[in-house]
C-alpha cells in the first residue's frame, strides 16, 4: 500500500497542515508584492491572514489548547473590520482617481 495513503489513514499529519499554511502565506506575500490591482493586493492580505489562522488552529489542535482557536476569532474579527474599512477606502480612492493601480496611487510622500 502507498505509504502516503497509509499515513493519511492514520489522520492528516501536522506537517501537511503547516505546509499548506506556509504555501498559502507565501502565495499571499507574492500577490501582495507583484499584483497591481489594489483589490487583488487587498485579497492577498486576506489570504495571508487566513494562512496564519490555519496554522493557529493546527497548533491548537495539536497541543489541545484552546488559546489558538480564540486567537483565530480575534484575527477574523480584525480581518472583517479591516475588510470593511479597506473596501471603503478603495471605493473612495477609485472615485477620486478613477484607477486602482497601486503604482499610480503614490501621492503620499513628501
Amino acid at each position, binding site marked *: 500500500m502507498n505509504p502516503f495513503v497509509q499515513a493519511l489513514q492514520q489522520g492528516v499529519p501536522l506537517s501537511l497542515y503547516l505546509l499548506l499554511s506556509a504555501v498559502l502565506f507565501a502565495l499571499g*506575500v507574492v500577490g*501582495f*508584492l507583484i499584483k*497591481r490591482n489594489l483589490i487583488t*493586493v487587498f485579497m492577498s492580505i486576506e489570504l495571508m491572514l487566513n494562512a496564519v489562522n490555519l496554522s493557529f488552529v493546527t497548533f491548537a489542535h495539536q497541543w489541545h489548547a484552546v488559546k489558538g482557536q480564540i486567537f483565530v476569532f480575534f484575527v477574523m474579527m480584525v480581518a472583517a473590520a479591516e475588510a470593511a474599512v479597506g473596501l471603503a477606502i478603495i471605493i473612495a480612492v477609485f472615485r477620486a482617481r478613477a484607477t486602482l493601480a*497601486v*503604482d499610480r*496611487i*503614490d*501621492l*503620499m*510622500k*513628501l
Partner: protein
Amino acid sequence: MNDSLHLWLIPLLPFAGFLFNGTLGRKLPKAFVTAIALLAPLASFAVVLNAVRSGTGSLVLPHVETHGTWINAGLLHIDFSFVLDQLSLIMLLVVTGVGFLIHIYSAGYMAHEDGYWRYFAYLNLFLFFMTLLVLAGNALLMFVGWEGVGLASYLLIGFWFQKTSAADAGKKAFIVNRIGDVGFLIGMFLLLATFGSLTFSEIAAKLAANPNLTGGILTTTALCLLIGATGKSAQLPLYVWLPDAMEGPTPVSALIHAATMVTAGVYMIARTHVLFDRSPFALGIVAIVGAATALFAATIGLVQTDIKRVLAYSTVSQLGYMFLGCGVAAYSAAIFHLMTHAFFKALLFLAAGSVIHGLGGEQDLRKMGGLRKKLPITFWTMTAAVFAIAGFFPLAGFFSKDAILYEAFQHGDSGKVLWFIGVVTALLTSFYMFRLWYLTFFGESRNPDVHPHESPWSMLAPLTILAVLSIAGGWIGIERFGAFLSPVLGPVADPASLSGGKQLDYVLSIIAVGVAALGWFVADRFYRQRPGSPARLAAAVPAGYKLLANKYFVDEIYSFAIVKPILGLSKYLLEWVVDVAILGGVAWLLGGTASLGGALLQRWQSGNLRSYAAWLTLGAAALLLFVLVPWASVLAGLGIHIAMAGH
C-alpha cells in the same frame, strides 16, 4: 508691647497705585489716573505721620514689624522685617513728603505728555521701592529696594524713550549702578560670612559683643559697601551716570536724582555705620571720596550751560559733602544735610522745571535771562533755594553744611584738609548757583522769540511749600537733630566740650558764610555788572575752560579705557570667534548632518505602495532569519565564540 503701625502700608500703597495705573491707566481718564497716583503717596505720608505721632508718644523705637519669613536655608534666615527707628523715620518723612509734593508738581508739569499714566505708574513704583529700601530691617531686603529704585530710575530717565539720548542715558545709569551693586553684593556675602546674619540689629549686637573684632575683614566689607554707595549716590568714580540722567523729566530729576534715591548711599552708610566705625581706614576712604567728589563736581558745575546739568553736578557735589560728613563719623550731620538738601535741591529742580516749562522746553542758560518779572513766584522760590544751598544764614543749607564742616575741622589733622576742601567747594557752589540765578532771572531776555508764562498752581504750590522748608528746614539745629538720631547713630559731640569750644564753631560759621558771600560777589561781578567778563576769562585760560566744559573728559576716558575695550572684546572675540566661528560652526554642523540625513532617508518614503510592501516583506524575512538561524552554531563554525548570557 507696641501696637502695630502697619508699616507695610507705607511701601504697599504706592505699589497698589503702580499696579492700578500700570495696568488700567492707559484706558482711564487723566483725572482718575492723577487721583490714584496722588492718593497713594499721600496715604503713605499719612501712615508715616501716624508713626511720627506714635514715635513722639508712647512708642518705643526701634519698632520692628515682621511679616513672615522670606528665606530660611541653613544658617541663612531672612525675614520680611520693617524697622522704624529715628533714622528711617526722618528718611520716610523726606521720601514720602517731598515725594508727594513732587507728585503734585508732576500733575502740572506732565499734563500734556502722552505717557501720563505710565509716568505716574513709574513714579509710584519708585516710591514703593524707596520706602522698602528705607524700612528694610536687613541688608537683603534693602538690596531689593536698592535694585528697585535703580529700575524705576532707569524707566524714568528713559521715559522719552523715542529720544536716543534719553534711552542711552537710562542704560548708562543702569549699567554704572550695576558696577556699584556688585560691591554691595560682595559686601553682603562678607557680612554673612563674618556675622552669619544680614539683619542690621544683629550685626550691630555682634559687633558690640566682640570689641576686639577689627581689621581686614571689616575694612573689606565696609569698602565693598562703599563701592555700592558710590554707584547709587553718584560719587567718584561712578558719578558719570547722574549728569546724563537729566534726560528724564524734570520732576524725576528732582525726586529721584536729587532728593531721595541718590541719597540711598548715604543712608546705607549711616545704617551700617557700626561697621565703618570699626574701620578707620574705610572711613578715611569715605571722607576722601566725598571731599574729592564735592570739589571735582563743583568745578565742572562752574561752566555748564544746561540749567539741569548745573544742578546735576551740584547734586553730585552736595552728595560728596554728605559722604565727607559720613567719613568724619558725623553721620547725624550727613543725614541733616541729606534732609535739607532734599528740600532745597528738589526746589531748585522744580523751579528749574518751572522755568523750562515757562520757556517751552528751553534748558540752555544762554538763552534765558530777564525772567524775574515774568515768573515772579518761580523767581522768589528759587531765590530761597539758591541762598539755602549757598549756605547763607539762617537758611537750611547753612546749618547742615556748617555742621559737616565743623565736624570735619575737629577730625584730627587730616580733618583740616577736608574742611578746607569743603570751604573751597562752598565757594564754588555759591558762585555757580548765583551764576545760574543771574543768567536765568536777571538782565535782558537773550531769546526774544519765547513768551514765558508762569506755571499752573499745581506746580507753584509745591514750590512754595519747599521754599518754606528750604528756609526753615534747618532751624531745628544740629544739636537737637543729632540728639534725636543719637540712639541710632551715636551721640554727637557737644561743641562746648571740644577744643576751641563754642567760639570755634562761630568762627567757622562766619568763614562759611563769608565764602558764600564771596561767591555771590564774584558771580555778581561776572554776570550782572560785566556780562562780557566770563567770556574774556575763558579766552584767557582756554585749556582750563576746555577741561571744565568737557567735564575733565571723564566720559571720554571711560569710553577709551573701559567701554571701547569691552566693545572690541565683544565684537572680535565673543562675536566673531565664539559666536560666529565656534557656536555657529557647531550649529551649522549639527543642522547640516540632520538635513543631509533627512535628504537621504526621504527617498525611502516614495509613496509607492509596492515599495513599502517590499520593505515590509524584507523586514519580516530578516526577522525570521534572525530568529530561525542558529547564529551561535553558525558563528562557532566560523571559529567565533560568543558568551551567551544566562548560560
